[in-house]
């Protein structure tokens, strides 16, 4: 068990704004929570390549194809920064990945929705990456050094992701009637799932208080969601897109946009595995992992033989 003195000392460091580094003493539960959150974040980046990868071969132009390829490659990079950060907590990457593919580890539910048209690619960049930026900007201040640094790196790249999506969406919203319809339809489908990305309301989020106490997070789910909504209302208006919420109203007193009820039943059903694409996504990820096994083995064996050869030669 963690001694009360140690815990007190640890809390003092957090309250002083110090960063916790891998070899520092930390409560067992802090380590556990970090492993859960960081690996979940990593899995999300990796599975996030699937909905967008779906459109690489059918991008509307060579320029858009290059942009999408670069973006999807960045998502892989983000996953790798985060796995690398998680491994500093003394866990093996293979175990993390297998816990996700064959165990209980979760990933962000947003990636369990299908990408039906290219407008979805625009909207993922604008809304989904927009929401990710809000979250990750907060996590860049996280108390755990490696997690904080991974998020700093991610944030630098994420603004390209959001801007390319927003720019494309603006073009479509300014295009032919068909394009405008496609753009609006995609926004209608992604808006509510995006708001759910911030997680349950603070009152239904048992982990939040502890994570904030330990400085892993610095803002609550509802604070982040509100910040996001305020910004998106403005950005939607600027390009003539409507947000599918009749209850959106500006509150003069608070200076915030109030929004309607989030469909939480849908959220929980997707979290539990019944979203439109859960099975498909897991199938694709397992297939990639299993079919890549011989490559991992062959490369290892090649390295071993080469090492033996080099030893002989010298």
């Amino acid at each position: 068990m963690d001694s009360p003195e140690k815990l007190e000392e640890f809390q003092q460091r957090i309250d002083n704004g110090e960063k916790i580094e891998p070899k520092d003493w930390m409560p067992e539960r802090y380590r556990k929570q970090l492993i859960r959150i960081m690996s979940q974040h990593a899995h999300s980046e990796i599975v996030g390549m699937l909905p967008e990868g779906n459109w690489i071969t059918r991008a509307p132009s060579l320029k858009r194809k290059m942009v999408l390829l670069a973006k999807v490659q960045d998502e892989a990079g983000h996953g790798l920064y985060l796995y690398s950060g998680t491994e500093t907590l003394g866990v093996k990457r293979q175990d993390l990945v297998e816990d996700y593919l064959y165990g209980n580890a979760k990933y962000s539910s947003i990636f369990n929705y299908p990408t039906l048209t290219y407008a979805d690619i625009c909207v993922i960049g604008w809304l989904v990456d927009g929401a990710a930026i809000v979250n990750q900007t907060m996590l860049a201040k996280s108390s755990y050094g490696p997690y904080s640094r991974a998020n700093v790196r991610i944030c630098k790249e994420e603004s390209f992701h959001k801007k390319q999506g927003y720019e494309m969406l603006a073009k479509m919203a300014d295009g032919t009637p068909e394009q405008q319809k496609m753009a609006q339809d995609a926004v209608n489908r992604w808006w509510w799932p995006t708001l759910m990305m911030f997680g349950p309301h603070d009152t239904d989020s048992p982990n939040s208080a502890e994570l904030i106490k330990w400085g892993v997070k610095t803002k609550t789910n509802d604070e982040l969601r509100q910040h996001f909504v305020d910004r998106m209302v403005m950005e939607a208006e600027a390009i003539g897109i409507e947000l599918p919420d009749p209850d959106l109203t500006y509150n003069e007193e608070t200076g915030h946009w109030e929004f309607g009820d989030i469909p939480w039943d849908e959220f929980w059903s997707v979290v539990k595995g019944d979203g439109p694409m859960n099975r498909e996504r897991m199938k694709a990820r397992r297939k990639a992992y299993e079919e890549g096994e011989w490559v991992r083995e062959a490369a290892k064996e090649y390295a071993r033989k080469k090492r033996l050869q080099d030893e002989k030669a010298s």
Partner: protein
Amino acid sequence: MTKNSSENTEWPLWEVFYQPKDGKPFEHAGSVHAPDAELALQNARDTYARRNEGIAFWVVPSDQIVASSPEDQGPFFDPANDKPYRHPQFYSVPRAVKKRK
């Protein structure tokens, strides 16, 4: 349900250091998995320098890194704490030669 984790197909871990610009010191970037040094360098490039963040890389097997331990931080750095005479501020110079702002 769990895949056979005893079968270890994971590649070794390497710590990655990069030089952000000509003349700058190398910094720690993170880590990569790779079967050998050559691929570790290539993975480091693809992971940590997609936007020219680095112009040169070092990769080191992670198990070869030796780090000081936080518990010994006090005594370990103690020798530096009682030597203020290592700093220029410890010395006084005639007013006449003090630099003007």
